[in-house]
């Protein structure tokens, strides 16, 4: 399983692997918002946590179709299905690799990008914490969507349509926790609900995604 994680991360870092693409997209979104909204510092700092969350979510979406599609096209997925690793393990590892090359960099960069939107002092901390807890759910739900659409030619758009509605609960509670935390209110309840969503996704979705993959490989 570690070999699979190392391979997926290595592939992401090599040419054409897409590492950094999500991060660059996130930076561009964070830069565009002040141009669109205008330079009022008060408005920007009020909407900053929500915008950062939406930006991170969309950046996460960009690389989802690569999770299984490339392995499906070159035959690796057939071979992985017959390998000693259970399919659920393959799904979980691939979602973890996606998080390490997408979700984690977004989480680390978000506090810095917040400066572009005049994010105020405790906000940096809260955007980091909420993304750290929330982005694993985004990768896992995304892996499930990718498993459903694997094998479809140009399934990327369908994947987005499937996955975005499933992202709504994570977005609501993540952005709410970040907004409340930034405003100095108690953010514990939304934070715990979001942590529950993440824990539930990580526990249950590998099984659903593995079943979807087995059906799609037939």
């Amino acid at each position: 399983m570690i070999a699979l994680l190392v391979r997926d991360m290595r592939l992401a870092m090599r040419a054409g692997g897409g590492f950094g693409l999500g991060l660059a997209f996130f930076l561009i979104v964070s830069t565009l918002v002040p141009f669109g909204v205008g330079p009022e510092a008060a408005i920007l700092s009020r909407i900053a946590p929500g915008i950062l969350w939406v930006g991170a979510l969309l950046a996460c979406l960009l690389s989802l179709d690569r999770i299984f599609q490339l392995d499906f096209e070159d035959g690796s997925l057939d071979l992985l299905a017959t390998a000693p690793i259970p399919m659920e393990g393959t799904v979980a590892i691939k979602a973890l690799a996606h998080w390490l090359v997408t979700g984690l960099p977004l989480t680390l960069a978000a506090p810095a990008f917040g400066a572009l939107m005049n994010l105020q002092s405790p906000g940096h901390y809260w955007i980091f914490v909420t993304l750290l807890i929330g982005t694993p759910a985004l990768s896992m739900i995304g892996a499930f969507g990718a498993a459903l659409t694997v094998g479809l030619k140009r399934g990327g758009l369908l994947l987005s349509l499937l996955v975005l509605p499933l992202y709504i609960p994570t977005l609501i509670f993540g952005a709410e926790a970040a907004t409340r935390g930034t405003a100095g209110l108690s953010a514990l309840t939304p934070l715990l609900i979001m942590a529950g969503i993440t824990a539930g996704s990580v526990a249950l979705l590998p099984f659903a995604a593995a079943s979807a993959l087995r059906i799609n490989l037939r």
Partner: protein
Amino acid sequence: MEMKVDNLSVARGGVPVLEGVNFTLGAGQVMILRGPNGSGKTTLLRTLAGLQPPLAGRVSADPEQITYGAHADGLKATLTVAENLRFWASVHGIDSISAAVADFNLQGLTHRPAGNLSAGQKRRLGLARLLVTGRPIWLLDEPTVSLDVASVGLFADAVRAHVAGGGAALIATHIDLGLQADTFDIGPFRADGVRGRSGQNRDGYADFDEAFT
């Protein structure tokens, strides 16, 4: 170690393509799977490998003993030859790739990215993967496509060594590999809805034409 196939029926895309397949593949045995295009060779191999469920009948073999070599080699273009092989080796808990590299004459290529290899070299790398799985039953789908004569010889030697060590191989191929092997013929897919029956030697193309006239 034995693969016993009992009255197996397989379907592709919901359409039954083969029924009543019976054979036993024992240790040390090579079986050549022959049949015209579209007769269900790939579907049969995928079913045996456990990638799709059979329509009827059963396959008794431990899935952990089977490795499947498909049309696609499952190689990553941006990883080197050694990295590709080492990945599959460690997935299957094998430490060394040097024997596989030597058997398929890949020594000079280990540091090249797989994407820069020729079609035949890629194929050799794909076949070398079989050796690093350490599994006794090989199910191979057209393994010699894009191989030159010398490489076909390397492949035949690898199969011989594998079965001499107690392994077994079921190979769908159209060329003569010069192996001591049994042949399993499957009939053509019949467009009139009457399924071809397996295990019979007959002139499949005549039947196929008949179905359209």
